C-alpha cells in the first residue's frame, strides 16, 4: 500500500534513512546511559535484523518459518566456534562464516519446500528448531565442552578498533545491521526480489513465465537464514556476551514471527517497527503493572500478562491492521502532512490577495 503521494513526493526517498543514520551514529552514542544501550537499543537492532531476515522469507517469498531461533543459534554457536578454533580469524569473518553455516542449514531445511506448501513447510522449520536445539545441547563440542553449556563471547575488535562497553557494542551491532539492511532493501527492488514476490503471489504463474521457482525459494531461504544467523552471532557477541542454547527456543522463534506481523509483512521498515514494540512493550508493561498493582505484580505475573498482551496484540493487528505498524504509521504521517499542507496553503491564500 503506497502512502498518498501528497506527503512524501517533495522529499527524496533517501532523506529519512540518512537522517536516522546521522542520529544513530552522531547523536545516540552520546545520549543516555548504559541501560539504554544494553537493554533497549542493542537488542532492538539485533531483533530488527532477525526480523528483516525472516521478512525476506515469510513476507516477501511467502514461506512461513517457525524456526528462526534455530538459525540464530547456529549463527551464535557458529561464530563462537569459528573464532575459537581458527586462530587469528577476524571477528567479521567469523560472523560471516556463521551466517553461511546458518544459510546452509536454511537450504537443507528449505529443500522440502520443493514439495511442501504452507503449514507443511512451517512444520519442517519446527523440525529444524528442535533438531538444532538438540544437537547443540547434546554435543558438548559446540560449546567447547563447557559444563554449563554456556559460551562466552570474545572481545569485539576489528582492524585494531575495540568495540568495548555498551556504546561500542551498540555501534558494532548498528554497523552490521545497517550494512545488511541496506543490502536487503536493494535486493527486494531487484529482479530476484521481484521473483520472491512472484512465487509468493502466484507460484504457478511464476513458473509459467520462467521464474525458477525452486531455486528462488531456496535462495530466499539461504539469504534469510544468513541474515538471521548473523543476527544470532550479534546476539551472542554484541548483546548477551554469554549464550546458552535455551535462549534460542521456540518462544524466540515465535517472537520474531510476531515482530514481523506487528511491524508489517513484506516491509523492511516493518521489522524495525515490530522490534521496537517487542523490546519496549515488556518494559512499559512492567513499569505500568508495578505502578498500578504494586507488589502483586511480580515477575511471574509480569510474564503471564506479557503473554496475554502479546497474543492480544497479534490478533488485534491481524484483524484491524494486517499490514502492521508500518501501514498505521504511513497513514498517520500522511494525514498529519495533509493537515499541515492544507494549513500552510490556507495561510498562503490568506496572504495572497
Amino acid at each position, binding site marked *: 500500500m503506497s502512502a498518498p503521494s501528497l506527503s512524501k513526493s517533495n522529499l527524496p526517498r533517501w532523506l529519512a534513512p540518512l537522517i536516522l543514520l546521522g542520529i544513530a551514529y552522531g547523536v545516540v552514542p552520546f545520549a543516555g546511559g548504559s541501560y539504554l544501550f544494553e537493554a533497549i537499543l542493542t537488542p532492538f537492532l539485533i531483533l530488527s535484523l532477525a526480523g528483516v531476515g525472516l521478512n525476506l522469507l515469510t513476507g516477501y517469498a511467502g514461506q512461513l518459518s517457525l524456526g528462526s531461533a534455530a538459525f540464530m543459534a547456529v549463527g551464535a554457536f557458529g561464530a563462537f566456534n569459528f573464532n575459537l578454533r581458527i586462530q587469528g580469524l577476524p571477528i567479521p569473518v567469523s560472523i560471516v562464516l556463521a551466517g553461511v553455516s546458518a544459510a546452509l542449514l536454511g537450504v537443507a531445511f528449505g529443500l522440502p519446500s520443493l514439495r511442501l506448501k504452507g503449514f*507443511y513447510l512451517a512444520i519442517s522449520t519446527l523440525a529444524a528448531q528442535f533438531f538444532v536445539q538438540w544437537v547443540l545441547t547434546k554435543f558438548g563440542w559446540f560449546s567447547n565442552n563447557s559444563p554449563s553449556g554456556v559460551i562466552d563471547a570474545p572481545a569485539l575488535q576489528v582492524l585494531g578498533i575495540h568495540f568495548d562497553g555498551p556504546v561500542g557494542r551498540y555501534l558494532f551491532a548498528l554497523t552490521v545491521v545497517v550494512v545488511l539492511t541496506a543490502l536487503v532493501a536493494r535486493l527486494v527492488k531487484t529482479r530476484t526480489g521481484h521473483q520472491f514476490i512472484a512465487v509468493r503471489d502466484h507460484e504457478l504463474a511464476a513458473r509459467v513465465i520462467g521464474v525458477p521457482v525452486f531455486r528462488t525459494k531456496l535462495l530466499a531461504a539461504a539469504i534469510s537464514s544468513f541474515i538471521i544467523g548473523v543476527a544470532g552471532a550479534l546476539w551472542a557477541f554484541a548483546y548477551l556476551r554469554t549464550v546458552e542454547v535455551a535462549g534460542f527456543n521456540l518462544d524466540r522463534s515465535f517472537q520474531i514471527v510476531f515482530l514481523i506481523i506487528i511491524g508489517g509483512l513484506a516491509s523492511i521498515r516493518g521489522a524495525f517497527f515490530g522490534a521496537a514494540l517487542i523490546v519496549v512493550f515488556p518494559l512499559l508493561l512492567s513499569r505500568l503493572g508495578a505502578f498500578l498493582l504494586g507488589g502483586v505484580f511480580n515477575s*511471574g505475573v509480569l510474564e503471564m500478562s506479557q503473554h496475554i498482551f502479546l497474543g492480544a496484540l497479534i490478533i488485534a493487528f491481524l484483524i484491524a491492521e494486517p499490514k502492521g505498524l508500518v501501514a498505521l504509521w504511513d497513514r498517520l504521517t500522511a494525514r498529519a502532512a495533509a493537515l499541515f499542507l492544507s494549513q500552510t496553503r490556507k495561510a498562503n491564500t490568506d496572504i495572497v490577495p
Partner: protein
Amino acid sequence: MDNAFDWTFFSEVLVGGLLAGVMYSLVAIGFVLIYKTSGVFNFAQGSMVLFAALTFVSLTERGLSFGAALAVTAAAMAVLGIVVENAVLRPLVNRPPVTLFMATLGLSYIIEGGAQLLWGAQVHALELGIQDTPLEVSGMLISKFDLIAAGISAGMVAVLSLFFRYTRTGLAFRAVADDTFAALAVGLRLPRIRTAVWIAAGLVSLVAGLLWGSRLGVQFSLSLVVLKALPVLVLGGFDSVPGVIVGGLLIGAFEKLAEVYLGPYVGGGIEGWFAYAIALLFLLIRPAGLFGGRTLERV
C-alpha cells in the same frame, strides 16, 4: 541386545509406544475437528489442553468433587470455544489460512498466559484414581494407566463418530466439512456449526488434558503436547480422523522404538525431533498424508 533379540522387550516397547500414540491422536483429533470445518490450523489446541487440565485440577484442589469440577471445566471450555469463534475467528473470515494460523498462535499465548495468571504457574499433581500398576499380558508388562487412557481415547473417538453419523448437528458438521458452499446454499448456519466445533474441540482437549495432566503433572509444558500432535497430523493428514489415529499409533510406536534402540547411540533425548523427522520423510513421499484428500491444482 546381544545375540538373541529380546522379542518380549521389543513388544513391550512397541505396545507402550502404541498406547502413547493413542494419546497423541487424542490431541490431534481436536485439531482435525477445527481444521475440517473451518480450515483453521489451530495451534492453540495445546494451550486449550493446558487450560482445561489446570482449571479442572484447581477446582478439585478447592474442594469440588470430580463430577462438579468436570462439569464446570466443560462449561468453561464451551465458553472459551464460543468466545474464540466470535471474537477471533469471525472477524478473520475469508482471510488466508496463514493469517488464521497466526491468530491461533496469538490465541495460544493468551490462553496459556490467562490460565496461569488465573490458577498460578506451579505444578499440580492430577490424580484420576487410576492405579499405574504394570499389567502382565502374555509375558509383557504393560502400564495399566496407558491401557485405560487408550481405552478412554478410543471411546472418545467412537462417541465422536456416532455423533457425526447420527445427530443433526453432526450431519451438519459433515456437510460443512465436505462442501462449505453447498452447506451454505441449503441454509446451514455456518457460524453456529463452527461454534459447535470449537466447543467439541474444547471438550476433546478436556479429556486430553486430564489424561496428559495425570501422566505429566499439570504445568505449563502441558501445552507443548501440541508439538507432539503436529507430526501426527502431518502423517495422518490434517483433515482425516482415521488418519490421525493411525498416524498417532505410528508416531508413538516409532518414537518409543527409536528412543530405546537408537537413543543410546546418539546420546538420547531424540524424542523432541524424531517424530518430525519421520513425518517429514513421509511427507516427501506422500505430500497429503496417509489419508489426506489430494487436491488437484485448479487454474
